Structure formats: C-alpha cells, structure tokens
C-alpha cells in the first residue's frame, strides 16, 4: 500500500509539472511583442557581471517601452542564467532561439561564454551583440556576431602603454588564468606591447579559474622583484590574489583589465586592491553628458552607482534598439544589417561605431581602485 502511494505521488508530481509547462507556453501575444534574449552569469563566480549587465539592458528596454516601444510593439526581454558555465551558455542560447523565438540576442560578458554561444547564434542567423566580451575571436564566429566594446588587442596594449609611459614601470610580472580565453588573450597582447616599448616581463605564472590558493605562483613572482603585477582575470580571483600578494609582503602595483569591474572586488580584496589600476569600458566620473545622463537614470531606477558592465549592457541594448527602429521590418536579418550600420552612436561608454570586423572602435578608461570608488585616471585611444 505504501509503495502504491509513493508511486501515485510521483505520478502526480510529473503531471503537475507537465501542466505548468503547458500554461507557460501560451504565446499568442507574439504579434504585438518583440522578443529579445539575454544570457548571462546571473549566478556563479562572476555573478555581478550578469546581474549588472541585465540591469543596464533592462533600463534601456524599459525606457523604450515607456516611450511606446518599437513600431507600436512592446519589447520583451527574456533573461536566461548560464551559471557562469560555457556549456550552459550554449544550452540557454539554443533554448532562447528555438523555444522563445527571440529576434536578437544580447550577451555575454565573459569571452569564453560568448564563444560558446556565438556559433549557435550564427547557425540560426540570429544577431548577437556582446556588450563586453573583449577576446578578438568572438566576432570572428560569423557575420551575425557583434560587440559594442573594444577588443583585447587594443585593451592589452593600452594597459602596457599606461604602465610604461604613465607609471614609468619597467619590470612587470604576469599572473594569468589558463582556463579563460579572455585572460590568455589579454596577457599576450599586454606582454607583446610592453616588450615592444622596452619593458621587461620578469615572470609569467598561471592559475585556473576557481583556485583559491595562489601563494606558490606569487612566491615565484616575488623572487623576480617586479614593479607591478598584471593580473588579467575576473574579480573573485583578483580579490583573493591581491590579498595573498600583500600577505607575502609584495608591494608591487597591481594592474588589470575590465574583468576587475565589480562591486565585489573591494569586498573580497579589501585594502589589498587599493591603489591598483585597470582598464575599463567606462568611468562614473567621466564628464561626457551621455554617461552622466545614464548614471542619473540608473540611480533613479536601482539606487546604486552603475559599474562598467551595467553601462556596457545599456549601450549594447541601445544599439540593438536603434537597429530595430531603423530596420524596415523586425526580422533577424534586417536587424543584423542595421546593427552593422551603427555609426557614431554616443553611448554611456563612449562613441560607438561598428567597424568592418563587427567590433566597436572605442577609447579605454583607466581607473584607479580607491575603496569602493573607481577613480578616473585617464582616457587612452588607439
């Protein structure tokens, strides 16, 4: 009898799941809506990346909807969490395209996950705009893949120039993440330019995403006596690395890239990250009116200062909305053609022009970590 009850309960559970699925599936309003998909790391080791990007995108889309939408249609944003895993990114993007039938995709921040999703978007010919993936390979996946940020062959050399010319550094060590396309690419471009300028890379050490102990690598770096350590990685690891650097008594300046930008950087790294510099998509202190306008709207909606990824998400959404506005009809191909024509759009992160390689030509902001505040240092062009 007890066995039978258990079986019945199990069957009921399955049935109730099946029923809810069916109710969700009723998409008869499709004619009055435009569906846009967003995939990002809403949870996982880079959770603030996904969350900030989503907030930025929603700000842009809500404003557009409040102003009447596009061609009288409301824009619906469907956000899917990929938990920070590349295989999950591929799965949710496939779901967004085949089940939700989105006309365009926004995402991802991390290059590894954009690279996992891009071939799928390309295969189904759905335009995808990455707000902040900087690895050059991402947009090489096909003519439907765009980005509204600079790329690492630009970001790396910018940081190298800043280290050599502005900070007058000559000996730099590198600590890079072997599992991240972003980290490997960025460190390579940095090292190349820094050596070209006449600097020396005194030590190059590696780790892997998810590691918590970096003392072995840092002890090696300490013996090479660098003036600075370049750490092209994401904020969680950077925070832990910074702490252990100081615990080992290393006084070198820490340098990084846009992967550092998160409110959690200071929470994890505490005083150890203070005085570090990194290249970013935006600085909240930038005097550009478009940036200040974005910050004002963002603060009104979310009551916090946006980070660079929120700004980048906002801009990617704006570029997409503009393309939809200009497209003769709302089809993925028509939208794609319009995104490719984006020229001199003044966004929160700077002027965006999509070039022939489907990347954006933009300047990089250099910021200095000072507690929870990121101080604007300088703006560097190509």
């Amino acid at each position, binding site marked *: 009898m007890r066995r039978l009850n258990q079986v019945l309960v199990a069957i009921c559970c399955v049935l109730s799941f099946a029923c809810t699925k069916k109710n969700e599936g009723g998409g008869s309003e499709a004619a009055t809506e435009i569906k846009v998909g967003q995939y990002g790391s809403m949870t996982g080791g880079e959770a603030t990346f996904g969350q900030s990007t989503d907030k930025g995108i929603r700000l842009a889309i809500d404003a557009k909807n409040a102003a009447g939408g596009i061609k009288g249609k409301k824009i619906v944003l469907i956000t899917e969490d990929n938990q920070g895993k590349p295989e999950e990114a591929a799965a949710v993007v496939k779901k967004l395209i085949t089940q939700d039938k989105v006309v365009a995709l926004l995402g991802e921040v991390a290059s590894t996950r954009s690279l996992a999703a891009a071939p799928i978007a390309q295969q189904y010919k759905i335009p995808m705009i990455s707000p902040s993936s900087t690895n050059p390979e991402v947009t090489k996946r096909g003519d439907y893949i765009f980005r509204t940020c600079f790329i690492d062959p630009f970001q790396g050399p910018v940081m190298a120039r800043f280290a050599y010319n502005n900070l007058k550094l000559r000996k730099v060590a590198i600590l890079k993440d072997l599992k991240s396309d972003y980290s490997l690419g960025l460190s390579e471009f940095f090292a190349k330019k820094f050596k070209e300028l006449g600097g020396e890379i005194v030590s190059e050490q590696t780790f892997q995403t998810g590691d918590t102990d970096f003392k*072995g690598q840092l002890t090696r770096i300490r013996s090479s006596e660098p003036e600075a350590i370049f750490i092209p990685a994401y904020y969680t690891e950077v925070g832990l690395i910074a702490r252990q650097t100081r615990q080992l008594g290393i006084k070198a300046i820490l340098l990084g890239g846009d992967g550092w930008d998160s409110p959690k950087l200071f929470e*994890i790294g505490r005083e150890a990250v203070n005085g570090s510099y990194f290249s970013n998509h935006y600085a909240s202190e930038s005097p550009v009116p478009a940036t200040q306008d974005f910050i004002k709207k963002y603060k009104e909606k979310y009551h916090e200062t946006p980070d660079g990824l929120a700004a980048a998400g906002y801009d990617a959404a704006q570029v997409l909305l503009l393309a939809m506005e200009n497209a003769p009809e709302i089809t993925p191909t028509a939208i794609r053609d319009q995104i490719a024509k984006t020229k001199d759009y003044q966004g929160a992160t700077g002027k965006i022009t999509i070039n022939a390689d489907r990347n954006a030509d933009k300047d990089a902001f250099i910021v200095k970590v000072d507690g929870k505040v990121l101080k604007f240092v300088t703006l560097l062009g190509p």
Partner: protein
Amino acid sequence: MQELVQHILNGLNLGAIYALIALGYTMVYGVLQLINFAHSEVYMVGAFASYYGAIQFHLTEKPGWGAFAIALLISMTVCSLLGLAIERFAYRPLRNAPKLNTLITAIGVSLFLQFSGQVVFGADPKVFPEVLQDSTLYTFGEIQIQLFDVTIFVVAIVAMLALNWFINKTKTGMAIRAVSFSFRSATLMGINVNWIIAVTFILGSSLAGVGSVLVGLKYPKIDPLMGTLIGLKAFVAAVLGGIGNLPGAVVGGLLMGLCEEMVVAYLSSTYRDALAFGLLIFILLFKPSGIMGQTRVEKV
C-alpha cells in the same frame, strides 16, 4: 633559499587545511569503514552557517577572538547536527546493507547537499565575514608568518592530538574502538552502538565546522561547491596517510600540501589537481594501506 623556505611554509599551511578535513574522513572511516563523501558538504554548510550567523549577530562590527569563538561555535553546532542527521536518515537504515550501498548513498547525500546549497544559499560566491583580522606575527627577511596560517596549523595538530587522546584514553574512546573492531560484539558487550556512531559523526562534523571557519577566514570566498575539490583532496590525504589512522591523516594532509605547492612553484599550476590523484594511484599501487596505515585489524 628564502624562496624555498617560503614555498615550504606555503605548502605546510595549505596542507594543514587538508589535514583538518582529512581527520573527519578518517574518524568516520575508522569506525564504520565508510568513506563519508558528504563530509565535504558538511564543511560547506558550516561555512554558510557561520556566514549567516556572523550577519545575524553583527560579528564583523567588532572582530576579535570573541567574534571568532561565536562563529566557530555556530559552525560546529550546525555541522554536528547536520552530521547527526545524515547518519540517522541516510546511513543508519543501511547499516546492515552491503558496503557499496552505503558508499553510493554517501555520494548521493553529497550531491544532494551541493545542489540544495545552490538553491538555498544561491550559486554566487559570498564573501566570508571578517570575524578575526589577520596580522603578521613574525618577519624574517622576506618571509612573513601570518596569524591565520599559524592558527590553522596549530588547530590541526591539537585536534589530532586531542582525538588521539580521546580514542585511546577515555571510556567512550574505548567504546569507539570496540565498535570499530566489530559492532556486533560491541553490542553484545552492552555498548550502545548507535550512540557511539553518533559521537563519531559529531566529532568528525564539528572538525569540518572548525575547518570551514578557518578556511573561510583565509580564503574569504564561499560557495555551495567549495567543498568538492578540497574534500576530494582531503580524502586523498587521508588515504595517503593511511585511512583510519589519525596521525596519518595529518601527515598525509601536510604532504599533499607540500607536493602541491612544489608542483605549482616549479612545474605548472595545470598539474596541481592531477598531482593529487596521481599520488592516490601511486599509493594504491605500492602501499595500499598508506604511509602510516597498518594492516592490523584495530582501526581509529
């Protein structure tokens, strides 16, 4: 030279963490001959318990030994209760079942806790509250010795010595040894086997609780999957030292930490995890009972 000394220190500090967790594996194995794979998840829950406890009681406002003790107490209590619950509901019903069934259950409990953790605590890493501030104790040239590192090391050694004393010198300890030897005969001798096994789980789990607070302070990033790798490595450390043998767990842990550090320093971080499991295979091939494990019947 200084670099080598620093590497050795780093390795010992890392090893002390493995040792602390390995003690828990070895305790339970010694009594039940069960590899309690859920141990690493008990450790994870301990970290979250002290995280939420610290927020609840505002422990970060006045960090110090007091706040540290409260965090430790919360973590140990929650871990003990969880360990007890796992034993009562997952392992006890299977006590007379073949060993393989219990082993698979242990893996099941471990996965269950990992993924429930993701639902309950959220999958994004949390920053462990700073209930105690780290400071530099000694400086010799470039080498600095940090308070947390010393604490972890001392706690691991003291825990090992205390457990050893408890097992060998107290009445309950004698009962534990009796149960370990044969729990049927122990029952005949009037020993309450259920109680003794519960005590073992309380001891092992509260050690995981201590470990979680210490590691949380040292590497202030906690997430629901934090136990997986550290648990596996601690398990390898326990096997390396001779599973069921308390000093062996500590020796195994320290050795693991040292080897890992040397691999990272002089080879490449890529081989870091490969080494742990390479060592396991090596040990199983040449000395299946581990460094300090004896092939005698008495365990713990």
